[in-house]
């Protein structure tokens, strides 16, 4: 799930934090710039792991801040295809499920990747919500809102930033994980805990 990536970046360090030790000041600036942001094809930046080198410290004319070139390692969240991850259900509608990890919420399971055969049952309480039920032989397994769901990563996409967006569309997601539930052992953990003994 997590990888280390080495990045070099030139950044401005504003004068008000220069009273702190240099590594700390640069770390604070890097965190402001990168934390919780997605870098295309690298993943979501979680944390600055360490700083390998700092060079420069020049002050350009007309600018009050010092400019440094820093080489540092960053912890990135980038699941590989085929990885099994546990997540919670955020939304469930006619197109499929949307799962969340707390720090990352753009995980979609389209309806065709749900275990076959599944059928959606409209939720009587809310109009757009749909509960998915898996019919395995004679038994019906429900995807409940509270369970921890295990899914397998099918693909990770980084859609290009759109130039214009219509007003009511969803906020732009720079990193989208598509998952599948279509294998033995995937889906809510409660489906497989007791079932394991009976199936084998």
């Amino acid at each position, binding site marked *: 799930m997590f*990888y280390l990536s*080495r990045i070099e970046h030139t950044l401005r360090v504003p004068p008000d934090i220069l009273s702190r030790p240099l590594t700390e000041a640069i770390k604070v600036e890097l965190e402001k710039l990168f934390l919780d942001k997605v870098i295309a094809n*690298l993943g979501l930046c*979680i944390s600055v792991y360490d700083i390998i080198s700092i060079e420069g410290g020049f002050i350009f004319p007309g600018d009050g801040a010092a400019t440094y070139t820093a080489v540092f390692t960053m912890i990135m969240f980038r699941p590989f295809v085929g990885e099994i991850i546990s997540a919670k259900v955020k939304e469930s509608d006619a197109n499929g499920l949307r799962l969340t990890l707390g720090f990352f919420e753009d995980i979609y399971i389209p309806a065709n990747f749900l275990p076959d055969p599944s059928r959606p049952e409209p939720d009587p309480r809310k109009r757009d919500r749909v509960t998915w039920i898996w019919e395995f032989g004679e038994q019906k397994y429900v995807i409940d809102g509270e369970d921890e769901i295990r899914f397998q990563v099918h693909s990770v996409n980084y859609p290009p930033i759109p130039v214009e967006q219509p007003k009511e569309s969803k906020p732009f997601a720079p990193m989208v994980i598509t998952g599948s539930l279509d294998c033995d*052992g995937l889906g809510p953990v409660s489906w497989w805990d007791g079932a394991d003994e009976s199936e084998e």
Partner: protein
Amino acid sequence: MKILEANAGALANFEVLNFLKSKGASKDPTRVLADVAPSEYKVYDYLVETAACDQTKENVNEFLEKCKKYDLAKAEVLNIINIRASTAVEIYLIVEDCEKRLGDDVDELVKTVAEVLPPAPTEPASEEVNNEADEKTADQNINEQLVGEGPEKAPDKEPIETS
């Protein structure tokens, strides 16, 4: 910004968790003091509920030693450690061509996982929920006592004013 090396090493969940802990993340509710950003806290909250929260380097090294004979890919071992595969179903899911490569060794592998890696925190989570419920009822009791004292004071005031 230049990317020098996109993949400088994979990290298991428990390593990221230990890194965040060493930065000062913890479970207690007063989180303003630590040097940890709110987005890092979200990662910490997620990891603390998985099987990675009790793993140590020694456990994992021991597990790696015992796994060498099964000839698993690095990604497969990482996956097994991260979700603590405790049943054969999970091993089949993670390892490609499991029948051909492991065959009957799957049960042995499941036993090794159960022996070496500490179990996932399923019960402690419910204990925490019970503790929070206890704290809430305790708070309610204190509030009720304060509310109860109010009306008792008012009747004392009235007789003094009228007389």
